[in-house]
């Protein structure tokens, strides 16, 4: 038996800044280079899923020649099993605004936007009130920057950065080809920093605490802490800030119900890890990355139902723009149903696995490319459940 290890709880994101004005003012007084350097030194990587180093993103955007630049907070939070950005925006919105303001100063943006998912519209009035106060603070500190809140309307794909820009431009939320990346060609074709809600709060925090404090947490590849959204078969579902780099075994010891069969790490677009692999799986960029979504399943759950539910999700949320994803999602859904009914042999699952490989290579954006993650990890590990 491995020794039971208590996971390290961290309290950075949700702590109230008693003297926020001072924190912000000090951050804004530092030079742009200094701020970028401390973000680079801290090892902070984006918390929205893809994990791009935040310091580099800001640096690239600042370097572009342009008459206008933007900073955007991605609050579309649509990945199944993710709900931490809602809590951050509810509890400490001023820290999100602060992170945006520091980013705006560094890259030279005058306008910033928060793209809030339509499902979170109930947050809007309060956010707007707090934003008005924040703008007064910016005036006092002499930063020429304004934040606007725009809302989505029930489309998961709009969390993908280029689809989000299209949506903000009043168009269908269809992802663009990449490159060019947002740092060069983002909202309205201008250099744009787009960051997850949580990333922006950490960026501000690193300005205050310094890179070293942040870096002292986590591992080489996954520095710092992260806010996790924990749901499913757990006695203690909720939102937890934990140090990165734990194994899934340690995680399950703390959050499982004693009967955990598998954990879906990273939402429907992420990976399903079966019990036998808990010990060797690290949660982080060196192992299984996650935007925070952790869904636990105990042995009473049918993994067929789980993958069926995810496939219904993808089939509906695919923007339909490219064939591998549009048709692929439909065929996968019909395929698993046919195998379950006995209309297709077990070997048909291998054909479906090949199809997901094709999607990974040929789909235009992360949605179609990532269907293979959950599909392969569930079908490979729980084949018998796909049939019986």
């Amino acid at each position: 038996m491995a020794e039971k290890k208590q996971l390290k709880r961290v309290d950075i994101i949700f702590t109230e800044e008693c003297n926020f004005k001072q924190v912000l003012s000090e951050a804004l007084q530092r030079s742009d280079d200094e701020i970028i350097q401390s973000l680079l030194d801290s090892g902070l990587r984006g918390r929205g899923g893809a994990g791009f180093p935040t310091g580099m993103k800001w640096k690239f955007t600042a370097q572009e020649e342009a008459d206008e630049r933007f900073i955007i907070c991605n609050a579309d939070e649509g990945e199944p099993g993710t709900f931490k950005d809602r809590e951050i925006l509810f509890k400490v919105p001023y820290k999100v605004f602060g992170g945006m303001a520091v980013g705006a100063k560094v890259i030279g943006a005058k306008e910033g936007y928060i793209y809030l998912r339509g499902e979170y519209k109930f947050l809007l009035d309060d956010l707007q009130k707090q934003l008005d106060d924040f703008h007064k603070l910016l005036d006092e500190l002499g930063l020429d920057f304004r934040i606007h809140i725009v809302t989505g309307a029930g489309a998961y794909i709009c969390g993908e950065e280029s689809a989000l820009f299209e949506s903000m431009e009043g168009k269908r939320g269809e992802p663009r080809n990449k490159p060019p990346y947002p740092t060069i060609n983002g909202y309205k074709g201008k250099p744009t920093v787009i960051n997850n809600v949580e990333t922006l709060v950490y960026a501000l925090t690193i300005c205050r605490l310094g890179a070293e404090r942040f870096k002292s947490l986590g591992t080489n590849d996954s520095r710092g802490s992260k806010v996790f959204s924990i749901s499913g078969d757990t006695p203690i579902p909720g939102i937890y800030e934990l140090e990165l780099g734990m194994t899934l075994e340690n995680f399950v010891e703390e959050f499982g119900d004693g009967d955990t069969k598998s954990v879906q790490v990273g939402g429907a677009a992420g990976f399903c890890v079966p019990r036998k692999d808990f010990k060797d799986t690290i949660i982080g960029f060196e192992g299984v990355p996650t935007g925070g979504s952790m869904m636990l399943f105990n042995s009473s759950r049918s993994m067929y139902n789980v993958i069926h539910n995810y496939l219904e999700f993808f089939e509906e949320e695919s923007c339909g723009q490219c064939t591998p994803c549009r048709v692929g999602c439909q065929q996968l859904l019909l395929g698993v149903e046919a195998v379950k009914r006995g209309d297709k042999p077990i070997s048909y699952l291998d054909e479906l696995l090949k199809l997901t490989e094709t999607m990974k290579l040929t789909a235009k954006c992360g949605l179609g490319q990532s269907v293979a993650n959950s599909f392969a990890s569930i079908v490979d590990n729980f084949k018998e459940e796909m049939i019986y």
Partner: protein
Amino acid sequence: MSNTQQMVKELVDKHGNDRTNLMAILQGVIDRERSLNDEAITEIAREMDLSAAQVYGTASFYTFLDTQPRGEYVIRVCRTITCDMKGKREILHMLENLLKVNVGETTPDKKFTLLETNCLGWCHKGPAMLINDKAYTELTVEKVKDIITEIKHNS
């Protein structure tokens, strides 16, 4: 000027006629009318100097920008995995019984529309649903009865 023309004009005056304001304007119509009819779409197109196809193309992409007629209260029950595991089916059945409609339908008095939707970001407190913009969490069949009774009572 028809009511729709009046409403669209107000919204365009408020937000501006640049295409970047289209989402806000479409949402403004939804907030008031719960759905976008042809007149609203063509009026928005005219006021914003876009083609009706452009406006419809955008509107039809988004689940919450309904182009079908909807009731005064649009109920969206989360059908994603965690809520499913926590008893979403009983919640949906209860609503179907209470409202006497199936998923996708609107009550004859145009008061309620019952829909399903994807993860609402309340998985730790499932089952969850939205009624218009308001979120309801940790639902039980008893709670659902009370919520519907209260809405019926208040209107």
